[in-house]
């Protein structure tokens, strides 16, 4: 099969744009892993919840999905903070396998609560810019996806600045490196854990707002994203922020090209094969420092 370079180029660019949103989702996951050393299985369900929130504020108040970033980001930060502080932290007694199970339980509960509340219908938003395109040389690019790309990269940079330049960021990095030492110098570890989890959820809220103009939501949608996000996190190195961004872009392109060459039903298989391969061969990823 031969494709013209223009089609391949378009697939690559489309992949990069999707990849940036993937990166944003993976960012929350990798941040939580880097600091709490846990894999948050509820990440996908929380993303679904955020997407439903975007849909709900649009239907109820006519709020534009991009403007919804302003109320939803702090809301999800607070939600994440509370979930870690009052549910995951106390219920897991500090054991890794318990955290795995608690977040799995959370994800089942959230996903099915949404199913009970919204039923299994697929919903999407109608915006007047949903189908607008931007001409870039020979390429036609979807405007909302281009905005999504820009915003996702911006959020990644902001998060990186937050971690490297602020006192909160310093505390987070201290806890990530040496929990005991951090608590000895007076850092409230439980608080930092909850802040980190909150930041991870805030990333999800932004991602949901950027996704909704071009995507749809149903109670199971998070599962599809979270597996991709796991792949990115493992590929980029658990806990690495630049790794999440580059990994996200890479996976976006891989998915797009696999979809082009193998068809939609097999398109995702490339991602999972990369996932398994990376886990088996180099579980520390491309940017991960420690095993």
């Amino acid at each position, binding site marked *: 099969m031969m494709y013209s370079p223009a089609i391949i180029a378009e697939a690559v660019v489309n992949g990069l744009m999707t990849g940036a949103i993937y990166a944003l989702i993976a960012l929350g996951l990798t941040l939580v892993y880097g600091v709490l050393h846990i*894999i948050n299985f509820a990440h996908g369900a929380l993303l679904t919840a955020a997407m439903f929130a975007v849909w709900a504020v649009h239907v109820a108040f006519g709020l534009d999905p991009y403007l919804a970033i302003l109320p939803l980001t702090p809301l999800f930060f607070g939600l994440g903070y509370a979930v870690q502080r009052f549910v995951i932290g*106390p219920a897991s007694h500090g054991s890794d396998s318990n955290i795995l199970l*608690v977040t799995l339980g959370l994800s089942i*509960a959230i996903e099915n609560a949404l199913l009970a509340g919204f039923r299994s219908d697929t919903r999407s938003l109608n915006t007047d810019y949903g189908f607008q395109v931007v001409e870039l040389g020979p390429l036609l690019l979807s405007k909302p996806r281009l905005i999504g790309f820009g915003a996702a990269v911006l959020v990644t940079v902001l998060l990186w600045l937050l971690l490297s330049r602020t006192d909160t960021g310093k505390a987070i990095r201290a806890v990530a490196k040496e929990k005991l030492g951090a608590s000895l110098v007076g850092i409230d570890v439980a608080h930092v854990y909850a802040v980190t989890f909150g930041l991870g959820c805030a990333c999800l809220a932004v991602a949901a707002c950027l996704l909704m103009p071009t995507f749809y939501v149903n109670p199971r949608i998070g599962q599809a994203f979270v*597996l991709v996000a796991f792949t990115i996190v493992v590929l980029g190195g658990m806990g690495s922020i630049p790794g999440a961004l580059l990994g996200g872009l890479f996976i976006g392109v891989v998915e797009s090209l696999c979809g082009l060459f193998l068809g939609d*039903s097999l398109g995702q298989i490339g991602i*999972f094969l990369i996932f398994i391969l990376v886990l088996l061969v180099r579980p520390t990823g491309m940017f991960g420092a420690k095993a």
Partner: protein
Amino acid sequence: MTFRDIVPIIAVIALLAFVPVFVTANTVLNFLVFTLIIALTAQGWNILGGFGGQFSFGHAAFFGTGAYAAALLQVRLGINPWIAFAIGAMAGAAVGWMIGYLSFRSGLRGSYFALVTLAFAEVLRILANAATFTGGAAGVLIKLHVRPENFQFESRSAFFWIALALVGAVLVLTRWIERSRFGAQLVAVRENEAAAKALGVDTLRVKLGAITLSGAVTAAAGCLYAQYFLYVDANIAYGTWISVEAILAPIIGGLGTVFGPLVGAVALHGLGEVTKLAAGSVPGIDLMVFGVLLVVAVGFAPDGILGLLRRLRRSAQLSGAPRHA
């Protein structure tokens, strides 16, 4: 293992075997057969997860392999369903060994092992959904031909007894594991892998043995599912729902115990039916309760229902005696 070890198992199975004598409603028998299939799936998970401490999040890989093997061997190749059943269980063992070999050789454990098993199950789901010989998204239909030699029966009770016999056999198998040298090594790996290795336990071999057995048992449950419902598709066979069921039942019932998965499956699905009755036709409400229960169980009852019962009995024995501070 002595005869005394399996007396409680024989008693429980014998008691349960009388259920179809008193209950003849098809809906109830359907529920019971389904619950036993889930229990068998979970018993498989419990061998690896409960005794070995390796939490697989992708037991659908084995369940689905069993279900597809049972269905495809008879539909495509005309092999007798009973033989297909046996091959299906062996296929599950083979897939288990393969996934185990790849992941344990690479030293994956904890969250990494959970992730890699999840990914294997997803790959199999996508492949089964796309390939033509599996029937693609349309799935495989096993032709209705009710004859005992076809593993199809007039009455649902027959299926109930077969499922019960399999659950009973795995109860005995699990009791043997608990009493055997292999089981002791497996528990040692769970408690402290480095220490077990230092004491000369071949940890790779032990873990491989566990995942192979685990895969065979869960695949047998998949075969049974295909044979009972006479239909398999990728989202049923390799779907995440069954991986989750496999984890839930042992944890709710009692992780790493012989009866835990059976008790958990019965308790969960009994509760699920009650919730469905109470909530009417709202979808997902029973699973929502399961999710909350999982969080609560991990937080407050890490030894599950059996652990709670043990605690109750102990405090009943101790009542009256002065309490230690």
